[in-house]
């Protein structure tokens, strides 16, 4: 407490009792009225939002990733206009590649074409990994938690990307490629219902061949506490560089028709059978689209 303020307060206190001419115990003055404080915007040193995403970091990443996206993978979209330019929507896609290459491609593509951010949800495992977890967070990733999804979709009307297959998708052996794994427990449908947003399915072809798994070493995975330990074709071909070096598979992304549920949002629970039906239907649609795209594909590398 500055002395001057104390003195003023004491003087005021004495004045108040001047009429009574008697002893007054001066109270410790309460903190003076709060000083004028600046807005957060002028105080802040960075632009990391409450989810951990930084538009500055994202912009740098976009610049670095753009050649990979358009020259290496030569990503090609179909039906991009089905993704709304405003309002919340839950994007779901098939998931592949030992270190999945589909998430950055989808996020980059939508941000580039629609100029709106995409928040990508991933297993909390990412958050435990030093550096990777922080980068993931700065680039728009966040742990898949229903509360996070709800807040982003319902309250902030953002685009959220999830992979309902989770690590079951990315840990698939090469021989199982483009065979969709179970879609979790349908949680993504329930979240979309509660948030009152459509689900937009995307079928991705190419990610599977960009980093195919030829073998897995469960003992190592267990020992170092990661979901799976893949041996990829990239590692065999490129050695340690194979951890980051993707094969230049041609990426094709097809946006399927948005699925609206027409249920009342914000309910505590929804019919489990309806959830599972919807989840299964979305899975079937993505699966059918994948087969369709694979039928049309003449070459893994040239599409």
């Amino acid at each position, binding site marked *: 407490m500055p002395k001057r303020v104390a003195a003023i307060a004491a003087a005021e206190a004495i004045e108040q009792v001047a009429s009574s001419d008697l002893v007054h115990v001066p109270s410790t003055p309460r903190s003076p009225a709060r000083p004028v404080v600046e807005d957060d915007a002028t105080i802040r040193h960075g632009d990391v939002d409450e989810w951990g995403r930084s538009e500055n970091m994202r912009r740098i990443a976009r610049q670095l990733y753009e050649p990979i996206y358009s020259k290496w993978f030569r990503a090609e979209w179909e039906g991009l206009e089905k993704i709304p330019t405003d309002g919340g929507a839950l994007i779901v896609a098939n998931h592949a590649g030992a270190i999945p290459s589909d998430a950055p491609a989808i996020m980059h593509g939508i941000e580039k074409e629609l100029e709106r951010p995409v928040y990508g949800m991933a297993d909390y495992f990412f958050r435990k990994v030093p550096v990777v977890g922080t980068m993931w967070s700065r680039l728009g990733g966040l742990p898949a938690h229903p*509360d996070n999804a709800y807040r982003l979709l319902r309250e902030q009307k953002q685009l959220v990307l999830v992979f309902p297959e989770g690590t079951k998708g990315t840990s698939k052996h090469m021989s199982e490629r483009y065979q969709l794994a179970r879609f979790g427990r349908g949680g993504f449908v329930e979240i979309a219902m509660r948030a009152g947003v459509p689900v937009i399915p995307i079928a991705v072809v190419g990610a599977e061949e960009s980093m195919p798994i030829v073998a897995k070493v469960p003992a190592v995975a267990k020992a170092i506490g990661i979901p799976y330990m893949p041996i990829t074709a990239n590692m065999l071909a490129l050695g340690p560089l194979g951890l980051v070096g993707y094969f230049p598979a041609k990426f094709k992304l097809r946006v399927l028709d948005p699925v609206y549920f027409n249920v009342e949002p914000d309910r505590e629970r929804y019919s489990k059978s309806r959830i599972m039906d919807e989840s299964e239907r979305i899975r079937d649609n993505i699966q059918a689209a994948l087969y369709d795209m694979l039928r049309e594909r003449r070459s893994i590398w040239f599409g």
Partner: protein
Amino acid sequence: MPAPQLPGRARTTGRRVLVTGLGTFWGGRIAQALEADPTVDVIIGLDTTEPTVELERTEYVRVDANYSILAKIVRAARVDTIIHTFLVVDPTQMSKRAMHETNVIGTMNLFAAASAPDSTVRNVIVKSATAVYGCTPEDPTWFTEDTPPSRPLRRPIERSLDQVEGYVRDFAEDNPHVVVSLLRFSNVIGTEIETPLTRALELPIVPSMFGFDPRFQFVHEDDVVSSILYVLDNDLSGVYNVAGDGLLPWTEVASLCGKVTFPLPPYLPEALLWPAKQFAGVKLPEEYLNLLRFGRGVDNRKLKQAGFTYDYTSAQAVKAFIEAVRLRRTIGTGPPAYSYERDVEQFFRHSPAVVRDVPAYDRRKR
């Protein structure tokens, strides 16, 4: 048209308030604020140590750590409001055992006293901390008051507060006529308070965890006091998170304080912290190491919806803190402004020679 009256104002008889932990930072500040309120008739402060702030009419009672004498005091003074601020949320303050005595046993005795058959207690406010949500990688970005911890709690502070909250819930359930509110405060920062985080931020180089830059939420110490008074005045019951708006990455917090960070190794950081603790007095308990990995955010909207307005966001609270640090660096802390002298205090409170007037009504948060 007359302004709608708040329940606290409509009170016809004065409150008789018991504040636990009077000698602590919070107890002292709450008592000071209550003294300025003419609707509060009696303020009794309990603690094991003497008050460290100047108080005008609060009666200080020295008790043992776990308040075994409490029932008597509550009955004798016809206490109707208990503000339980004496919960240790900083594990560096005392040993695990002492913390258990203070938090768990202290709270147990407090509620035993408050739920006696002839108890006059009608309001209870407990100051807990957001540490009860735990801190794990599975956590949502925002905890609401209803979000359960993602994993079973196992760190001492978390478990201790969880047990305390268990007593609070039981008490609220058994005594539906009592308005019970439980406030969970986020990381407190401000001009005066000292916590492991403020100590870390005052070091020349701020410890961080290599490869992690979690987001932290802060609440200003003034908002802590005013939220407690707000809840008291408005008879709010239930659980409320109290935290400023916004989350700041730890490196940005350090940068706001003009510091750079020193990354601790994410595996076995204790190996580096041990010498730091021995030679530099840097105490960073495991709860905080974990916060440096994953941070914690809580949803503060419930209390806002109840009408409370915060004076500070997280960033503003950090700025207030560092400005106070800079001021102290220049002018020093000086000798303690006040020391408790029993006879003098007794004289002022009880001697007929002292003329008592009603202090100015300056509570801001009405």
